[in-house]
């Protein structure tokens, strides 16, 4: 005797003809007495029959050509012309060289700029003083002349 669980697990193999004859005979015996397993067997064989008779459909004749066309279109888009490749390599190299240069010189440039700004301010102040002195001198001369 075999259990219902085993019987239902072996049903598919019996239908597909892959079950050993000894097991197949035991399963057939079980199916004659068990209604539930018989129903399982009937449905399984119905599905297998329907599946076996279901046709395979073929895509339109130009299917492969269309796929190849779409694939070639994609790869052509992804590919660059030699001139574009050279331009891209040069641009990347310049960008790569410029980045550390920029990073290294930015503090120097900033410092120089601050120093220059300070010097300019100092110069402006000095020129103001000089202008005042000159003005005083001019007025002084003028005062001397008139007296």
């Amino acid at each position: 005797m075999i259990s219902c669980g085993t019987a239902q697990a072996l049903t598919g193999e019996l239908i597909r003809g892959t079950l050993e004859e000894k097991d197949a005979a035991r399963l057939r015996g079980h199916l004659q007495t068990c209604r539930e397993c018989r129903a399982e067997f009937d449905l399984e064989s119905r599905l297998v029959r329907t599946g076996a008779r279901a046709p395979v459909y073929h895509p339109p004749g130009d299917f492969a050509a269309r796929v190849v066309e779409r694939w070639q279109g994609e790869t052509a888009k992804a590919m660059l012309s030699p001139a574009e490749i050279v331009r891209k390599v040069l641009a990347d190299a310049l960008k790569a060289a410029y980045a550390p240069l920029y990073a290294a010189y930015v503090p120097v440039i900033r410092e120089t700029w601050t120093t220059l700004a300070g010097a300019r301010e100092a110069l402006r102040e000095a020129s103001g003083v000089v202008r005042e002195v000159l003005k005083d001198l001019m007025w002084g001369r003028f005062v001397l002349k008139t007296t």
Partner: protein
Amino acid sequence: MRRYQSSVYTLALRMLSDEDEAGDAAQTVFLNALRSLHLFRGGSSLKTWLHRITVNECSARTKMRKRFPRPSSDDDPVASLPDAQRLASDPANDEERETWNAVLQLPESYRLPVLLRYFEDFSYEETARALGISVDTVKIRLFRAKAMLRATLVERGGEQ
């Protein structure tokens, strides 16, 4: 590609029930396969791998269809399938037609294991790989799918 194109197209057609969309989906499947061919490690057969891509592509399209329904989506999906047309033209195939109708009306998560196992003749392991789920889950879904099919077929049998 020529070796598997019909198999991929047939599965797409059975999942989408629309010849144009199935053709487009099958093209996308092969393009996706070509794009990621370098990722194919040979852990499963090429056919199983292609079927997995097909299932993913068609499921995405089905979800898209649910989100943005087309005007013709009210049509009966079973009737628009070439299998249904073939079966309808031959009254001798009543049992087959009924089975088909019942299978195609199953929810997608139950319909796919049935299609792969019985219509593509996949093993449990191949079905699991194609669907990206475990073998145990395949067995559970098939068990539930068969319970639903039995109920549908008994109900129809009772009606007649």
